[in-house]
């Protein structure tokens, strides 16, 4: 660097920078919409209405949000150990298998109080297994975690196609899917919960997993910042060599971090399998695992940030679906574009706006350190 860059104030790093990144991503998409020959402003209004205003739309937005909280947390936990878990997609898919196996084949003979928690637990456990293998290979055999998790996504996809179209397929069905899960392992809809308290809401797929996602978020915050294990994760992430000399078992931390990360991704499947579809269907992960990467980057790997980033992406997904109805030439794929831009600007180009912004802010705000000198 030619000029010394003043440090960016924390509020700017946490709020302003992500906001600028989002605005740049949205503006580029706006230009593309202009080129296509539509009005970007109208598109934005349609998306906002579709995400928050129409009856039931908020429920849909929060339902997508739930998926992104889980996959975002999964990526974030691994990021804290400087591990890039790109395999959330596969871990969620295999997690769904765990939930489905319990829900379809074991739950009918179990009471609700056991069936449901067991199904949720198995979703996490199966995801964890799909994460711990790449973690082990990275820690003990020196495999590159990124490549291994990419490969595991494809292996999971093949495995699931084989299972869903083969041994686990519902009899007499043409589409690859399992039979439906027992009622005792279904996650109750938020509409019913709210109705119990006398609040009437529109129909939506939002279910109890949203609440579980919030509880898990809090759990992740405690884990990362309030426990010895979390401290060790962050130490390994900051400097694995120093961590080693400080007596931390780096391989063990890497392996368990990936297990937790995979488990979190696996939990995403409870929203789909136990909450909405009530069976395991083909490709139910629909790219949510990859979106988790954008969510974690934007949310700065912090559960609070991840919640808001998930809400943003939830709104984009739900609002994007509305584009299909309102426009002839723009569709929900527009959201993929926004997602790609956000990953580019807040991930790969994270430092592009940082130095100029820091210099700009330094002109307006006199840092306290200067006063002391």
């Amino acid at each position: 660097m030619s000029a010394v860059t003043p440090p960016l104030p924390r509020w700017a790093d946490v709020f302003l920078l992500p906001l600028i990144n989002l605005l740049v991503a949205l503006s580029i998409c706006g230009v593309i919409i202009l080129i296509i020959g539509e009005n970007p402003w109208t598109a934005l209004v349609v998306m906002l209405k579709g995400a928050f205003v129409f009856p039931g739309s908020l429920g849909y937005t929060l339902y997508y949000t739930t998926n992104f909280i889980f996959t975002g947390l999964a990526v974030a936990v691994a990021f804290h150990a400087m591990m890039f878990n790109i395999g959330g997609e596969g871990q969620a898919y295999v997690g769904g298998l765990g939930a489905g196996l319990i829900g379809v084949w074991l739950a009918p003979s179990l009471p609700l109080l056991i069936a449901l928690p067991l199904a949720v637990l198995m979703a996490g456990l199966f995801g964890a297994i799909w994460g711990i293998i790449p973690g082990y290979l990275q820690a003990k055999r020196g495999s590159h975690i990124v490549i291994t998790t990419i490969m595991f996504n494809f292996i999971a996809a093949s495995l699931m196609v084989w299972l869903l179209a083969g041994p686990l397929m519902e009899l007499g069905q043409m589409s690859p899917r399992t039979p439906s899960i027992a009622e005792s392992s279904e996650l109750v809809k938020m509409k019913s919960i709210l109705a119990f308290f006398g609040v009437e809401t529109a129909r939506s797929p939002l279910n109890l997993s949203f609440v579980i996602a919030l509880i898990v978020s809090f759990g992740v915050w405690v884990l990362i910042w309030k426990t010895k294990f979390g401290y060790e994760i962050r130490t390994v992430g900051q400097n694995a060599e120093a961590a080693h000399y400080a007596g931390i078992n780096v391989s063990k931390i890497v392996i368990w971090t990936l297990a937790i990360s995979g488990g979190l991704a696996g939990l995403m499947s409870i929203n789909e399998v136990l909450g909405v579809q009530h069976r395991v269907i083909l490709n139910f992960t629909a790219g949510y695992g990859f979106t988790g990467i954008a969510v974690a980057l934007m949310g700065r790997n912090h559960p609070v940030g991840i919640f808001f980033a998930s809400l943003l992406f939830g709104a984009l997904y739900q609002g994007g679906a509305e584009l299909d109805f309102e426009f002839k030439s723009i569709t929900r794929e527009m959201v993929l574009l926004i997602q790609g831009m956000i990953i580019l600007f807040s991930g790969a180009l994270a430092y592009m706006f940082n130095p100029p912004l820091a210099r700009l802010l330094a002109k307006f705000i006199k840092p306290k350190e200067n006063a002391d000198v």
Partner: protein
Amino acid sequence: MSEFALQLLYTFDGTLRLATPLILCAMAGIFSERSGVIDISLEGKLLTGAFVAAAVAHTSGSPWLGVLAAIAASVTMAMIHGFACITHRGNQVVSGLAINILASGLTVTIGIAFFKQGGQTPLLGKAERFGPNEWWFVDLFNHVPILGTIYRELISGHNVLVYLALLAVPLTAFILYKTRFGLRLRAVGEVPAAVDSAGVSVTWLRYRALILAGVFCGVAGAYLSTGQGAGFVREMSAGKGYIALAAVIFGNWRPVPALLACFLFGFLESASSRLEGVPLPLIGEVPTQLMLALPYIMTVLLLAGFIGKASPPRAIGEPYIK
């Protein structure tokens, strides 16, 4: 020729056709990764190339213009990757992922806006795509037993891009091992500081490596939509970029071994479609999914050192800071 031999011949024929995009992408991956830049964006560049080739071939009527446009588009994607991870020293994996997602979104969005066919391009006519090339003397050799059939089925009768892909391998090997540029490119992936202290720009070398990667991926994309297929279908790259990446790793970042890996992976895909529901002697029926997943499984095993040893370029993934 016996029925079995003929089936085998057809499988090899399919292998060549399925391996073509893998070979081109693998060469692209070798250029990029040997220069020290991780390239998981092969997939996105391939997809972009496929869309642009079909769109331009359809609009202009010329498949060659399609190839050129595909190369231009794919190089543009590679330059975004370069801008993020060479110029701004961003995370190469994150950048590659962004390119892949951008490509997914862009191809469909622009496709719908232009052609109004749900993200596809219109079906390409005969003149708008690369047809099979009959080689000389096919009729003459036809009477020669065995070799004549092999000549007709396996060697002759592919489109020009298949042969280009096969030529890309010696070309890559030549550039890497016999030119000054290639020497520097390999050096910059191992010890960039040494190249820098010799007065050669690390940045410009890596950019050139990415341009080459873009060119090869562009041709591969054109092959998908205007050679093998007759038009663009959304998500038509279908993970081939990742399989090519696996082939690069499997070939230890060297052109000829990577070519063999592409043939192996192409063969698995070709054989899996022929063996669907057919019980094999001794092992019985093999699930197609297992055969299709084998490239990924083998790559994992290789990376873990269970079969052979992977030795990636030493400076891969690290942005160079002067």
